[in-house]
């Protein structure tokens, strides 16, 4: 991916680079989108004066008012369903679901309605609705506050699903999602909200009102090049994968990290190219491995890179159980040791 911001000099662009947390970058992205188009509306529980339980919408209510930053009734299906109606009249609703575990009352609206309206109307109705979900675990929360829900939605055609791993991507991708014509499930790795990084606020990577914007979200990124093993990760596990790569490098193993960025569509060509280079692949996600995104990737790599593989594709993820009490979550999550173990096992082949 290259910056396509044209006309601005390097000096000017440098002045737009700021260090931000991921939460701050999403906030800045929402602000930029709202300034750009007054059809962009934010909706959710407690997102107004409180700024959301994670403060991601902090300050937006003050600056844009309660007509643009709307505190909704406590009803997830209602939030998604009414947003569908508003989108039918040209609005761009951006919903915040308070926690991943509370999206299920809206599951019906998302999967049977939001995802399918374009198909059944033969393209007559576009629903540019974004559903922002603080997702995944590792914050020591009580139950229903740490779920990884991506596979449950990825099975539904008509939805796009993405998850940023860096503040820059968070800033860019939230805007690209808002201005894309399809509904997007935007999964925010909540344990990474406070991670800092440089964000170039001038350079949303492709022009927003261009089809290329959505295509860009769908593209994976090589977060770190390597030659021995490919780690495929997204959202919260990208940082884990990069840490694994550091440790493995000390042990003489060169690890390539692919940050998927998008779960639907999956950028299979990028993953397969990497698999062909290294011959060894581990998929790392927090969601339970059974029936998960990793299974899909393993199958696709098997189909398309079989003769390049030196070992079977492995997965490191959660167990087939409810998200455990938080005192156990570090063993449930694909932590450094478990991913390293998988890397070692692949290298032994």
């Amino acid at each position: 991916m290259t910056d396509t911001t044209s006309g601005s000099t390097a000096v000017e662009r440098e002045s737009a680079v700021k260090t931000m947390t991921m939460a701050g970058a999403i906030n800045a992205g929402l602000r930029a989108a709202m300034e750009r188009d007054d059809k962009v509306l934010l909706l959710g529980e407690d997102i107004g004066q409180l700024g959301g339980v994670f403060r991601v919408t902090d300050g937006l209510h003050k600056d844009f008012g309660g007509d643009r930053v709307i505190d909704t009734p406590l009803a997830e299906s209602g939030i998604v369903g009414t947003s569908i109606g508003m989108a039918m009249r040209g609005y761009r609703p951006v919903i915040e679901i308070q926690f991943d575990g509370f999206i299920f009352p809206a599951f019906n609206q998302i999967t049977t309605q939001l995802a399918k309206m374009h198909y059944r109307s033969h393209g007559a109705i576009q629903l540019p609705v974004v559903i922002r979900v603080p997702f995944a675990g590792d914050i020591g929360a009580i139950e229903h506050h740490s779920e990884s829900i991506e596979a449950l939605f990825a099975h539904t055609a008509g939805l796009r699903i993405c998850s940023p791993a860096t503040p820059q991507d968070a800033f860019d991708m939230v805007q690209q999602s808002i201005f894309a014509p399809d509904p997007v499930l935007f999964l925010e790795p909540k344990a990474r909200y406070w991670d800092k990084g440089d964000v170039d606020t001038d350079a949303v990577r492709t022009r927003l009102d261009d089809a290329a914007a959505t295509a860009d979200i769908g593209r994976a990124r090589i977060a770190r090049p390597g030659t021995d093993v490919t780690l495929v990760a997204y959202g919260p596990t990208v940082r884990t994968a990069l840490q694994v790569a550091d440790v493995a490098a000390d042990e003489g193993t060169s690890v390539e990290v692919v940050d998927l960025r998008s779960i639907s569509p999956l950028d299979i060509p990028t993953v397969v190219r990497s698999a062909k280079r290294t011959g060894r692949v581990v998929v790392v996600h927090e969601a339970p491995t059974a029936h998960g995104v990793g299974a899909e990737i393993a199958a696709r790599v098997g189909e398309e890179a079989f003769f390049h593989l030196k070992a079977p594709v492995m997965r490191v993820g959660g167990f087939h159980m409810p998200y455990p009490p938080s005192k156990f979550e570090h063993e449930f999550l694909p932590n450094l040791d478990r991913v390293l173990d998988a890397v070692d096992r692949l290298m032994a082949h």
Partner: protein
Amino acid sequence: MGPLSDEGLVQLLDADGTRVGDPDWEPYASHLTPEALRLSWRLMTLTRAFDAEATSLQRQGELGLWVSCLGQEAAQIGSGTAIREPDYVFPSYREHGVALTRSVDLPQMLTLFRGLEHGSWDPAQHSFHLYTLVIGAHTLHATGYAMAMDRDGLVASGQPDKDGAVVCYFGDGATSQGDVNEAFVFASVNNAPIVFFIQNNQFAISEPTTRQSRVTLAQRADGFGIPRVRVDGNDVIAVHAVTQWALRHARAGQGPVLIEAFTYRMAAHTTSDDPTRYRSHADEEKWRQRDPIARLEKHLDSLGELSQEYRDEVAAEAKALGKRTRETVKSWERPPLLTMFDHVYAEPHAQVEAERAWFDRYQQSFIDEGSHA
């Protein structure tokens, strides 16, 4: 007062076709000239003829399923004729009469039931949204749409002729759904310009309304602070009047209204259903006596406003609609297979593109084989 009682129903035309005086509601019906009433009779008659034709097409295996609205014509035409531009309608899946008032081509609707597509008409063109098969889901879309109409300045604009509102149809069973209750909450707290129109046809498949509620469905509105009215759903004049009132209320920025039209589903729930398992002939006969079309016919007759000539005209029109329906349905061919992959997303999606390409190659391989033979 339970959900199957007929207490408190607004009525302007009794079962014998005699006009009933009601000073509260009469003003909303006073504009109905004999000509307007004849039009309602005609629309109800056409709806019924189309319905009968679709039922027989299903019996002959030409349609996968048919959802009849037999007996509900007054509820649909009475309300449908009160709707105008820029009002917008969200139907469930039984609103063929309302569709007719929105100028949807009835035969064309059947592509859905023949399994050719999921949505048969352009919603924007008719201000009539696609049918929704997940019970109650569309009540939220309707509410959001109404909230957006309000934002767009189409409500209480100062020019009452230009104001609009949403009418959302659903059944008695639907009132039990969470979505419907959430729609009431959103509509109420946002003062949305929406008329919730319940057709209480007394059944959700086999379950009588008493399995959904202990009170009248109209009373549901009370807890949400939504004004409500209960109307004789087989009285096309009363239905028109209450819908007229409700729409004016909503268009004027006074917020949502709930109408319960108490009626009866004279046919089976769908062509797959067997109503003999859950209701008696006596009941059905009782409601046949209250047939909405016959009722208006008696009234027009008593006024001397239904000439034989007009009857013949409508009968010919109904017959022609039936014939056109049959011919249209039989003329359809399956569209090219690859169109199945169209419109999954608004923009290209790698998975869909890859699967379309694969399927195309797969199909081509048979054609190639065939050409060698």
